[in-house]
C-alpha cells in the first residue's frame, strides 16, 4: 500500500485521475444519444478521447522523462525494458480507460440504458495504449520540455483536426466514432479494423523507436510500420461517408402482425410495438375507405435494406408515442423519398406536409391534433394546410386520388411548380 501511496503522490496520471473522470462524465452529458440504442450511445460516449488521449500521452511522457532524467532507462537492470515501462505506464492507461468507461456509462444511462457496445470501447482502449506508449517513448528520447507539449498536441491534432479534414473518410482511421449511429445503422467493421491497424502501427513504431538497433534501421522500421499500417487502413475506409456506419442487421428487428400488415421495429422501440399493433388495423381500414393505398410491411429498416414496397418508419420517444404519435409515424412512412437533385436541390419536399396531414386526417387523427401539427404551411403564400385537408375530406374519391397523384408528383420536383396545384379540384 505504501508503494501505491507514493505512486498517487508522484504520478500525475493518478493524482489528476478524479479531474479527468469528472471531465469525461461532464463531456458525455453534453452529447445527446438518441433513444436507447447502446451502439450509438457508446460511440458518443467515447468522444471524450479528444482530451483523454492527450492526457494519457502527456502523463506517459512525464513517466518516460523521469526514467530518462534519472538515467534508469539504460541501467544494467535484470528486468526487461518492456516490464519497466509497463510498470510506469499502467496508471496512465488504466485511468484513461476508466475515464472512457465513465463517459460511456454516462452516455448510455442518458440514452435510456442497455449494455455498452464493446467495439468502440475496444478501439478507444487501443488508441489510449498506442498513444500512451508513443508518449512514453517521446519522454524517453526527448527532453520533457519538448516531449510534454508534443504529447498533448499530437493526439489533439490526430483526434480533432484529422476528422475535420478532407476526404471525410480519413476520420475513420483515428478511432473517433462520434458520428455513429442512427437507429438504422450499425458500426461498420471497416473503421474498427482500420483504426486498430493504425494503433498497432503506432505501437510497432514506438517499439522500434526505443529499441537498441542502429539509427538507420530504427528509422526505416518506424517509417515502414506507420506507412504500411496507414496505407492498409486508408484503403479499407476509402470512399466511406463521414459516418463510420453500415446498415444495421435486419435480424435485430422485432416484428408483429396487425391485420393485413406487419410492423417491424428495432429493439429500443419495442415498447411502441404493442400500441402500434392495436392502432394499425383501424388506420388501414380508414385509409382503404379514403382511397389511400397502404403497404403490407411497415419497417424501421433503412429504405435501401428494406424489402421493396415497404414503408419506412421513423420512431422516437421510446414507448410514449400515444395514438396520435403512432398515426403521425405511420402517415409519415407513406411519404415518398425525395430525389437527389443536382442543381439547386429538391423543392418538392415543401408540399410533403400536405400529404402527411391528409394521411393523418384520413387515419382518424382529431382536428385539434392536426391543427397543432400543421399550424402554418412552409411558405405563407401556400394555402393553409387545414383548409386543403378539410376540402379533401368532403371531396369525391376520384378527386382525392387525382390530388394525391398530383401532389405526390410535386414531391419529386427539382425546380419550380405551381402553387395552385395544391388546391383540391
Amino acid at each position: 500500500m505504501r508503494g501505491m501511496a507514493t505512486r498517487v503522490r508522484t504520478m500525475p496520471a493518478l493524482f489528476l485521475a478524479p479531474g479527468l473522470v469528472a471531465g469525461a462524465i461532464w463531456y458525455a452529458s453534453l452529447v445527446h444519444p438518441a433513444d436507447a440504442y447502446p451502439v450509438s450511445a457508446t460511440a458518443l460516449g467515447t468522444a471524450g478521447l479528444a482530451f483523454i488521449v492527450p492526457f494519457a500521452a502527456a502523463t506517459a511522457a512525464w513517466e518516460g522523462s523521469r526514467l530518462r532524467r534519472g538515467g534508469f532507462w539504460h541501467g544494467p537492470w535484470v528486468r526487461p525494458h518492456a516490464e519497466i515501462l509497463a510498470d510506469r505506464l499502467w496508471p496512465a492507461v488504466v485511468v484513461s480507460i476508466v475515464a472512457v468507461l465513465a463517459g460511456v456509462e454516462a452516455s448510455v444511462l442518458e440514452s435510456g440504458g442497455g449494455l455498452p457496445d464493446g467495439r468502440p470501447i475496444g478501439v478507444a482502449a487501443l488508441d489510449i495504449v498506442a498513444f500512451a506508449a508513443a508518449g512514453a517513448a517521446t519522454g524517453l528520447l526527448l527532453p520533457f520540455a519538448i516531449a510534454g507539449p508534443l504529447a498533448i498536441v499530437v493526439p489533439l491534432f490526430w483526434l480533432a483536426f484529422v476528422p475535420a479534414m478532407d476526404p471525410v473518410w480519413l476520420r475513420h482511421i483515428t478511432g473517433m466514432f462520434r458520428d455513429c449511429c442512427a437507429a438504422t445503422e450499425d458500426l461498420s467493421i471497416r473503421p474498427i479494423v482500420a483504426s486498430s491497424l493504425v494503433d498497432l502501427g503506432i505501437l510497432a513504431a514506438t517499439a522500434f523507436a526505443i529499441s537498441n538497433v542502429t539509427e538507420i534501421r530504427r528509422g526505416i522500421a518506424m517509417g515502414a510500420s506507420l506507412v504500411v499500417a496507414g496505407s492498409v487502413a486508408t484503403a479499407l475506409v476509402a470512399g466511406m461517408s463521414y459516418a463510420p456506419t453500415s446498415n444495421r442487421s435486419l435480424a435485430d428487428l422485432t416484428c408483429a402482425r396487425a391485420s393485413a400488415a406487419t410492423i417491424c421495429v428495432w429493439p429500443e422501440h419495442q415498447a411502441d410495438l404493442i400500441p402500434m399493433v392495436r392502432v394499425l388495423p383501424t388506420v388501414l381500414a380508414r385509409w382503404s375507405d379514403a382511397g389511400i393505398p397502404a403497404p403490407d410491411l411497415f419497417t424501421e429498416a433503412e429504405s435501401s435494406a428494406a424489402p421493396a414496397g415497404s414503408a419506412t418508419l421513423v420512431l422516437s420517444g421510446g414507448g410514449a408515442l400515444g395514438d396520435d404519435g403512432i398515426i403521425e409515424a405511420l402517415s409519415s412512412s407513406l411519404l415518398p423519398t425525395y430525389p437527389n437533385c443536382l442543381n439547386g436541390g429538391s423543392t418538392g419536399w415543401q408540399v410533403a406536409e400536405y400529404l402527411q396531414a391528409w394521411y393523418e386526417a384520413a387515419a382518424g387523427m382529431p382536428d385539434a391534433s392536426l391543427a397543432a401539427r400543421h399550424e402554418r404551411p412552409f411558405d405563407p403564400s401556400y394555402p393553409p394546410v387545414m383548409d386543403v385537408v378539410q376540402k379533401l375530406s368532403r371531396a369525391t374519391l376520384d378527386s382525392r386520388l387525382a390530388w394525391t397523384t398530383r401532389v405526390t408528383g410535386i414531391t419529386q420536383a427539382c425546380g419550380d411548380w405551381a402553387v395552385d396545384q395544391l388546391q383540391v379540384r
Partner: protein
Amino acid sequence: MGLWWRSRRGGLVVASIALSGLLLVTPLAPIQAMPSPAGASVALACLIGLITPAAVAAGCARSDPWLESAGTRPTRAYDYLLLMGAVSGVAGLSLLEQSAGLAAIGQVCSRAGLAYAGMLLIGRSFGAWRSAAVLPATYLTLVAVAGRGDDVLHPAWWAWIASDAGELSSWLLTTFCLALGTLLYWRRSPPLTSAGAA
C-alpha cells in the same frame, strides 16, 4: 553570449521560427476543428503558434539555475529576450506572409504565439522551464474541448485565441497575458532546484 546562445540551442529556435512560417503557408493551416459540442472552433494555426515557445522553453530548460544565479551575466534577461524575440519573429513572419497573401490566418498564429509566450512565463514563474510549455498546450486543449461561448462563431472570453483575428478584446487579453507573464517572471524568483535542469 555565444555560450549562452549555444546552451539555449539558438539554432533550434531559429529553425522553429522558419518551420512555423513554412507550415503557415501550407493549405492545412486554416483548417478549423471543433472536437467537442462545448468546444471552440480552433484553427490549426493555433497549434503552429506553439512550436516556437516550446522550442524556447526546451532551450532554456538546458540551463543550470544554481550556476547561473551565481554568474555575472544577466542570463535571466537573455532568456526573456530570447522568448520575446522568437515569438515576435513568428508574429512578424506570419503577418508578413498574410499581407503577401501567402498565409490565410497569420494574425491568428501571431496572437496565439504571443499568448502562449505569456503562459510560458507564467508557467516558468511557478515551476521549471522543463514543464512550462505544458500550460499553453493544456490551455489549447481546454479551448478546443470547452471553449465555446454563446454560439459556434463566438468562443468564451477565456478562449480568446479562437476568436476572430479582428476582435480587439482578444488582442487586449493577449497583451494582458503577456504582461502578467512578464510581471510574474521578473517578480517571482525562479525555484533554485535541480528540477530546473533538463
